[in-house]
């Protein structure tokens, strides 16, 4: 990596010494975080002050000198590694005035390739969280580190030689942390590091142990696959490493730029005109490479919603269908070995035949993934992958994933050990055993019998509450750390600010308890020197190696891992069908709240689930038919009962596309402490609380989990569902799901609205403009062609619906960038969410088994904007660069503009939204205002970034380069679905996108001439298969 990072704001810093104010090298004695916060304070006072009277405000300059690196008001980006989940994506943190503000993806990072998911971006909210523990606790009381360390040491000293010492963490790929834990455990004869994942893929590793001889999680290469078959794996949403997979998945489906083929050479008009000369040849048929994605799943996942072909499948039948598929492929491969008569599956033989031959034809380029945490099923997948020559091609086991390595057997064993009282000391880091694991309540009881329980949780979770000592880990944004998500990919984490309290990195804590001590920086450096540095030959000097790592954020070195050998084709087919098992309940992670760790994040809680569009709650989703049979409607509270007596009461939500014998519940809700959100929204006469009857946000579904077959079972059969008669309103951001209007009010002969346009790959090959419902209107003349010429820049955006997976990372990017307030459940239920960008999710076709499309929707910046005409006070007008500007100062709040917006993208400040948490306010972007009540707001196309880009280019005396300005949503998008730029710049990516044959405007017939173009979705399936 040699090219300097070029972002809109700044270069990364080169060495830690050059940067002032961090914990390691305080530049001036006595500079503490207060100095920085006060320095930062002057930016917020700008926002807070107003009115006509002049109350004196103060400007408090930083105490330290203005070094070359810190300029008040200038933001700079630093490379680091995301700590949001175990995936370890590369991240750029934008830091201004000593505080990290905005998390963005790192384009050069080999895993995430520039994207960053919603969770990763929302970390700032967790950093600036009032309730994050900021100092050690002993027996619930604040203590000092030396005191706590001494007491822990004393307790450890009392452990007999036979005493079991267990360190439980979530999967961690951090070499330093693993070393620190190992060093700590070395002292104890029976010391073990247990990795436990709240959502486990243990079965995949176990299956590889069976077929390849080692517990190993392959790295899935979706970018190398021509055919992707997923059995319930939500790899675009929550499975293992969604950002990495989404980027790779998209790169296997990217369509080349093609323009409309005109018979008479007529132009498509508008923005297309200028760029035609520079465009590649206008071609007829091209064989655009696009992978074929088939999804078998029981519930509607984000991945399923993006599949070319989707089949509903009972979770209990997955093994059977896989067996059939494997059997067919084996026959094609000439492998014998299908002696077992198999039950016939619900998927038709023709479908399986076609799929098998498609897979076989694409062997070496086929990828079969399975989300089931079931060893026999995963073993079948491994055999199938072997037959399809996937290992070494679409599956990488030589540089495997280390992102998830949890072993459910060990977790189960730990639970048993706890129950038997064998454990003498337990250290729990980054995982909530009590809340997230089977038998959590029993674990809570057992914990009280363990002589020493130390929790390293960052907040008071159920496990911490049952621990004697809480030694909070520092937030990933405020401490050093590292990760090795893929064997040989060392990713560094560096602090972005001075710690806000007295928390201590887990690395440092374990080092302290093992007696070796050391600061986290010295420990990380030591690890890198001893582990990473020797595995590469590029740099010979460790300091240079280290500096490069700090600058780049990651280093690629040799993987130090043994090769695997396939043990031979010997499948144990799953013969049984799923019949007779009644309704199964499927427990799954939610995209917004992938684990209970993030339940305290208001941004994520208010992030609508990409499929259900529900915020602030989990629920039990039922298929329309099952709901009909049970007589359940949306928002009815139902009770779920499984034979062994667990009863759960949750509101129901009808989810089209779900299997009829499945009820699905999201994990990670009902978390201790979420009662804090009871009053998160505006408080008024009819305002309702954000929390449910249990006083928490959502209900914890983990009590339904069980150990079985050596794994945690996320599917439970024979669940009894009954109505309770109570209702609980689920706050959804979308009321009408279908692209067609309701049948009772549909005009006779009406067709679905062509808001989202799509076509099939075959049709696209015939005609790149296939799927357009009518001829382009844009070419028709303007009424006043000379009045508004747009001679300078003209900003535009194109959104590739074929790339957009609906993951909603852009929502959080926008929220962080533009200070979008959190409004709470009641306000969302009243359809008053404030997100500037939303993702419209439409169902098409059959209600029970629909196809799904996702469409990001934000202000379209129409050239003939209906909103502008109606504003009486000129509060929304058009800029000379084609932006629809919203001027908060001038807005009097008639809401006429919002009414007249055909896209309904304007958001009104119904109340003064809460901004009284001074700490949380540190996450506010000082370069964008915080709007008061009574003001309309909406997407500004990140005009702050546009201004910044223009001013910087002018300052440096260079022309504004294409791509120098990136909007927040564009930056974050894992699939690069969003292109932004100057349409008047004929060489720009946006001009090319705007002239693409797939490009269309939503509601083109209104002739409002949006500046946002959409690129038509293409499904690699026939119309029959894909429900197009």
């Amino acid at each position, binding site marked *: 990596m040699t090219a300097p990072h070029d972002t809109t704001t700044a270069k990364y810093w080169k060495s830690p010494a050059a940067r002032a104010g961090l914990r390691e090298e305080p530049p001036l004695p006595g500079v503490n975080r207060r100095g920085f916060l006060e320095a930062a304070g002057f930016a917020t006072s700008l926002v807070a002050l107003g009115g006509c009277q002049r109350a004196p405000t103060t400007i408090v300059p930083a105490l330290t000198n203005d070094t070359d690196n810190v300029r008040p008001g200038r933001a700079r980006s630093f490379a680091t590694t995301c700590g949001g989940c175990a995936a370890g994506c590369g991240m750029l943190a934008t830091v201004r005035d000593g505080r990290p503000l905005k998390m963005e993806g790192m384009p050069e990072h080999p895993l995430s390739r520039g994207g960053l998911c919603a969770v990763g971006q929302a970390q700032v909210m967790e950093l600036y969280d009032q309730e994050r523990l900021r100092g050690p606790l002993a027996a619930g009381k604040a203590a000092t580190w030396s005191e706590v360390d001494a007491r822990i040491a004393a307790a450890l000293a009392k452990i007999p030689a036979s005493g079991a010492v267990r360190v439980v963490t979530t999967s961690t790929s951090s070499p330093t942390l693993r070393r620190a834990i190992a060093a700590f455990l070395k002292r104890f004869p029976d010391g073990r590091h247990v990795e436990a994942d709240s959502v486990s893929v243990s079965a995949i590793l176990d299956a590889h142990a069976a077929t390849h001889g080692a517990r190993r999680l392959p790295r899935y290469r979706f970018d190398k696959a021509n055919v992707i078959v997923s059995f319930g794996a939500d790899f675009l949403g929550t499975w293992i490493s969604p950002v990495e997979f989404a980027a790779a998945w998209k790169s296997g489906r990217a369509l080349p730029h093609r323009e409309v083929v005109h018979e008479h050479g007529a132009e498509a008009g508008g923005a297309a005109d200028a760029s035609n000369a520079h465009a590649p040849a206008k071609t007829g048929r091209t064989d655009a490479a696009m992978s074929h994605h088939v999804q078998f799943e029981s519930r509607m996942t984000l991945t399923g919603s993006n599949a070319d072909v989707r089949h509903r499948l009972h979770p209990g039948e997955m093994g059977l269908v896989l067996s059939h598929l494997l059997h067919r492929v084996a026959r094609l491969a000439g492998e014998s070995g299908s002696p077992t008569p198999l039950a016939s599956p619900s998927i038709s033989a023709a479908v399986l035949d076609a799929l098998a031959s498609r897979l076989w034809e694409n062997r070496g380029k086929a990828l079969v993934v399975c989300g089931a945490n079931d060893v026999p099923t995963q073993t079948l997948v491994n055999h199938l992958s072997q037959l399809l020559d996937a290992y070494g091609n679409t599956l990488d086991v030589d540089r495997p994933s280390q992102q998830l390595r949890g072993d459910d057997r060990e977790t189960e064993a730990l639970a048993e050990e706890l129950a038997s009282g064998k454990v003498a000391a337990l250290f729990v880091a980054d995982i909530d055993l009590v809340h997230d694991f089977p038998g959590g309540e029993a674990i809570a009881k057992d914990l009280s019998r363990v002589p020493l329980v130390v929790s390293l949780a960052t907040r008071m979770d159920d496990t911490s509450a049952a621990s004697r000592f809480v030694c909070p880990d520092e937030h990933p944004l405020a401490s050093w750390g590292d990760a090795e998500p893929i064997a040989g990919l060392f990713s560094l984490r560096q602090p972005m600010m001075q710690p806000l309290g007295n928390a201590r990195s887990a690395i440092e804590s374990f080092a302290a308890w093992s007696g070796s001590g050391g600061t986290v920086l010295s420990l990380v450096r030591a690890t890198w020197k001893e582990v990473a540095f020797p595995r590469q030959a590029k740099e010979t000097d460790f300091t240079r190696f280290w500096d490069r790592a700090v600058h780049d954020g990651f280093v690629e070195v040799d993987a130090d891992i043994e090769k695997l050998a396939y043990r031979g084709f010997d499948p144990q087919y799953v013969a049984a069908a799923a019949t007779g098992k009644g309704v199964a309940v499927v427990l799954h992670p939610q995209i917004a709240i992938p684990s209970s760790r993030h339940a305290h994040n208001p941004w994520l809680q208010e992030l609508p689930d990409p499929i259900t569009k529900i915020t602030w709650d989990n629920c039990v989703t039922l298929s329309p038919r099952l709901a009909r049979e049970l007589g359940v409607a949306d928002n009815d509270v139902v009770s779920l009962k499984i034979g062994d007596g667990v009863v759960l009461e949750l509101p129901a939500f009808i989810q089209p596309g779900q299997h009829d014998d499945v009820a699905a519940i999201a994990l990670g809700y009902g978390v201790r402490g979420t009662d804090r959100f009871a009053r998160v929204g505006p408080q008024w006469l009819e305002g309702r609380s954000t929390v449910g009857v249990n006083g928490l946000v959502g209900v914890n579904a983990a009590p339904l989990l069980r150990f079985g077959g050596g794994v945690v079972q996320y599917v439970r059969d024979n669940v009894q569902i009954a109505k309770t008669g109570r209702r609980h309103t689920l706050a959804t951001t979308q009321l009408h799901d279908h692209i067609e209007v309701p049948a009772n*009010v549909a005009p006779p002969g009406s067709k679905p609205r062509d808001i989202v346009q799509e076509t099939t790959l075959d049709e696209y090959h015939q005609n790149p403009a296939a799927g357009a419902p009518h001829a382009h209107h844009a070419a028709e003349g303007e009424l006043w062609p000379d009045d508004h010429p747009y001679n300078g820049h003209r900003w535009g955006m194109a959104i590739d619906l074929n790339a957009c997976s609906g993951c909603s990372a852009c929502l959080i990017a926008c929220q962080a960038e533009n200070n979008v307030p959190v409004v709470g459940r009641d306000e969302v239920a009243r359809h008053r969410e404030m997100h500037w960008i939303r993702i419209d999710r439409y169902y098409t076709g059959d209600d029970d088994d629909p196809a799904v499309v996702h469409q990001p929707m934000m202000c379209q910046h129409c050239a003939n904007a209906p909103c502008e005409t109606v504003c009486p006070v000129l509060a929304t007008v058009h800029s000379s660069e084609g932006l629809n500007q919203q001027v908060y100062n001038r807005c*009097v709040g*008639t809401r006429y503009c919002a009414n007249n917006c055909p896209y309904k993208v304007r958001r009104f400040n119904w109340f003064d939204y809460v901004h009284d948490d001074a700490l949380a306010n540190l996450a506010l972007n000082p370069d964008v205002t915080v709007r008061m009540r009574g*003001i309309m707001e909406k997407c500004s196309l990140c005009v702050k970034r546009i201004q910044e880009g223009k001013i910087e280019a002018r300052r440096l005396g260079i022309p504004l380069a294409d791509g120098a300005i990136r909007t927040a949503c564009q930056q974050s998008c894992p699939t690069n679905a969003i292109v932004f730029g100057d349409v008047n710049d004929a060489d720009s990516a946006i001009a090319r996108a705007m002239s693409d044959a797939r490009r269309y405007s939503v509601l083109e017939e209104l002739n409002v001439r949006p500046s946002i173009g959409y690129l038509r979705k293409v499904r690699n399936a026939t119309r029959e298969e894909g429900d197009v």
Partner: protein
Amino acid sequence: MSSPHHEPSSALYPPEPPLIAGHKSLGDVTREICQPLEGRPTRLWWIGFIVAASALLLGVVSVTYQIATGIGVWGLNKTVGWGFDITNFVFWVGIGHAGTLISAVLFLFRQKWRTSVNRAAEAMTLFAVMCAGIFPLIHMGRPWLAYWFAPYPNLRGPLWINFKSPLVWDFFAISTYFLVSALFWYFGLIPDLATIRDRNRRGLRTKICRALSLGWNGSARTWHRYETVYLLLAGLATPLVFSVHTIVSMDFATSVIPGWHTTIFPPYFVAGAIFSGLAMVLTLMLVARKTMRLEHYITARHVDTMCKLMLSMGCVVGLAYGTEFFIAFYSGNPYEQFVFLNRAAGPFAPAYWTMVICNVVIPQVLWLKPVRSNFAAVFVVSIFVNIGMWFERFVIIVTSLHRDYLPSSWATYFPTIIEVATLIGSFGLFFTCFLLFCRFVPVIAMAEVKGVLHAPGHRSDVAQKGEAA
């Protein structure tokens, strides 16, 4: 010298009941109309006043709460940005139309029967426009900045206003309408104020009347100019009446929202406004007639004529409903078709059918003479029309907004108690003002009634002139 109750002498003029019944002399008119102002208020008045003032108080409290807390206390949302607020606005503007219509338009058409009702109708106009004017003000997110609607020189560049916005047109139309209506009303009131002034020699009332009557002495030269200017005002007010609701309708007609974007709106709104205004005038007149003992001034003939007018307007409104549906069907525009089907069968269907039944079906009973002459029945019909016209505006505003182009953004709307209280409060304001008006201002234009006392059919004038010649 002819009697005031002159029988028409020619067959050309079929016998008509007199405009003013009860053989009144000029002095009777003065006395009977001034009496309610000079005596103590009746118990009925007090009851009405207390009820109205309580409603007003409720409204004041709810509006204060709303302004202090935010528009969020209404049930609006990102999709339905206007609900009760603009519904009430259009409703009250509509009510405010009959007054000026009766005063000005009927004056131009020389409809002498207007004299008994024009004063009250004009007052009603003023109060209704006041009620209407409050809603655009409080519906703003930042009502304290409402003065930004006016184009005044400022230190912002200067930054003017958007003269292309229908809301600016509205601002000009409503304020002009209010000012001109107030002027028209006051101008017509001057001679009557002089009458009150001259009846008493003492008291605060006399002092106020002396100041406000501007030294009116009934001189023929003044009357001569006064009549001309009154005619001019009527001539100006007539197109003004039509312009106001035309402009109000443009708030919707110039938008892009299906169900709003339609050229039928100006005439449709004007007809609807007159319809609702007449209904409210009828409601009030029937009440005032009973409670203020004005049976001789507001006669069956007045009510009958008003009923006929109302019936015809109801038919126009019904025609508009039908035309809208037909054009939606005929246009082939799926969005437009959907909006109308959604009105009739969607979530707000009850509101739609309430509107149709109240505005189109029920007024048809007015074809029957017995109904028109049964004041109780007419009263009930007028109440239904008032309800129906409120729902018409609700239907237009809310059903069009709640489901427009992108199904993803479809939403519902349900009013909060604050909105309901504000609506009640606006009625409170209206009736409080009206009751105060009944107490302090002659409810019937004495000078005008005196002018027609001698002229049932006005044959006497002609006859006299002929004799004199």
